[in-house]
């Protein structure tokens, strides 16, 4: 153990846990990290990073409408998320307009709509929580909901693992043996909508795609095996969630940003390691 005069590591670690809001927040951050990292592997491998970011942003009007009407915020967000997921799936099926263009149009419009609705209210305070997350405001009920959604997402990923994996690297073989690749893609978008909604409390609308992409991208540099990549990504995300929250507690900086930047630091280390490994191999 590290023993510097006047500094006790154990105390330092335990101090934040004396507060129940910190315990709940920490649990939420860990759960969200695991969910985002597992699904994030597909987001990275299937090059869906832009869609993930778009889905997170389009949830905003749903959140605002739910807030203004005193409905359940999760309900508003998940409705907006699923509508967007279906919309993206529908647009990309027709193939007349390029998918990334369509997403760019829809996602900025939805985000603008959210901001427009926000500006009708005098106080912006609650909305900054939506934009940047408010992990210390996570309630017991929120935590339960996050756990249920997480269990659902992970179970679906496990049950459909071989089909999701196959359609990701060879959709042609999948189609020849009778798997409907479009429907699986749709399923992934719906899972993405649920995942994004859970992470909004933790890092907010704007930074959600970092939790989806960064840990998985770091893991992809470390391993060449999909389940292992999901596991490594989850470990990175959990570490970042815990470390970010402690940094936020002791230095009084925004927790969502601290978590994201810890993820980024992990990615930096993984990237540097892979560069060095390639140099050595050569």
């Amino acid at each position, binding site marked *: 153990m590290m023993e510097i005069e006047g500094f006790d590591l154990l105390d330092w670690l335990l101090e934040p846990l004396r507060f129940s809001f910190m315990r709940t927040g920490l649990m939420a951050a860990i759960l969200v990290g695991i969910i985002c990292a597992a699904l994030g592997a597909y987001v990275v491998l299937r090059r869906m990073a832009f869609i993930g970011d778009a889905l997170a942003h389009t949830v905003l009007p749903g959140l605002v409408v739910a807030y203004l009407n005193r409905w359940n915020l999760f309900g508003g967000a998940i409705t907006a998320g699923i509508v967007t997921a279906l919309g993206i799936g529908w647009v990309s099926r027709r193939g007349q307009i390029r998918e990334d263009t369509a997403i760019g149009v829809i996602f900025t419009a939805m985000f603008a709509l959210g901001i427009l609705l926000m500006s009708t209210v005098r106080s912006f305070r609650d909305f900054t929580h939506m934009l940047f997350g408010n992990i210390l405001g996570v309630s017991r009920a929120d935590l339960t909901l996050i756990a249920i959604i997480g269990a659902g997402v992970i179970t679906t990923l496990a049950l459909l693992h071989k089909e999701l994996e196959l359609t*990701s690297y*060879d959709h*042609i073989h999948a189609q*020849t*043996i*009778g798997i409907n690749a479009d429907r699986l893609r749709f399923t992934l978008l719906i899972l993405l909508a649920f995942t994004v909604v859970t992470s909004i409390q933790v890092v907010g609308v704007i930074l959600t795609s970092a939790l989806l992409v960064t840990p998985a991208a770091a893991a992809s540099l470390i*391993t*060449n095996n*999909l389940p292992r990549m999901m596991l490594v990504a989850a470990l990175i995300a959990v570490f970042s969630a815990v470390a970010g929250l402690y940094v936020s507690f002791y230095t009084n900086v925004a927790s969502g940003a601290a978590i994201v930047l810890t993820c980024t630091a992990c990615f930096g280390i993984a990237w540097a390691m892979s560069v060095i490994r390639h140099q050595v191999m050569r």
Partner: protein
Amino acid sequence: MRFAYNRRYYADPLSGAPALEVCDLTVAHPGARHPVLHGVSLTLQTGTRVALVGPNGSGKSTLLKAIAGLLRPQQGTIRIYGLPVGGCHHRVAYLPQRSEIDWRFPINVRRLVLAGRYVHLGWLRWPGKADWQRVDAALERLGLEALAERQIGALSGGQQQRALLARALVQEADLLLLDEPLTGVDAETRATIATVLDDLKQRGKTSLIATHHLDRLADEYDDIIALEDGRRRAFTNDHVLVHAGG
């Protein structure tokens, strides 16, 4: 309990029907106005090995994709063992051109080959010991056992082609559609693939092979189908002379 990817998985083939019967087939790519294939007809008897030849853009790949059920015909019919396309997915194996696969994906060679078993497993079932044994046998047959744990992108072009053929073998398909399996591969791969194809023929399997390798066609294939501009052309020795040089 089995949840097949396609409800028609169990359809029995019609007895006495040829392995493949294509009649007056017209196919266009989705969104394109002009068809790539115009009224192509052909028949493959069970247990034959047939070459599909023609210049680039003549419609070879499109024909194979239509038979594999990847493109929907505008007109005409395709019967596989007497059944419509999709009536017997597990009986048809399609080997795409290598460029159609994301080789950077984090899976190893064994897992790629295992995907040949999926059609027999269906939803929610995990591969069992027997499936993995078939995979290992196929890897050995194609000389890939030492590379089984490699990430698929770390293979050479020829090794990748052999891995795809191994996947078709574990699928235990009766009709194999191979798109340019011999293009850009090493001599070892060419020899291995030839041996495997010989063996398949002896076991009564049917194969249709799009190829540029037109030398010694007559003794390697039972029949030769030539395409040009999406139409069927009579095969002449000119094809050999023209293309073998290039």
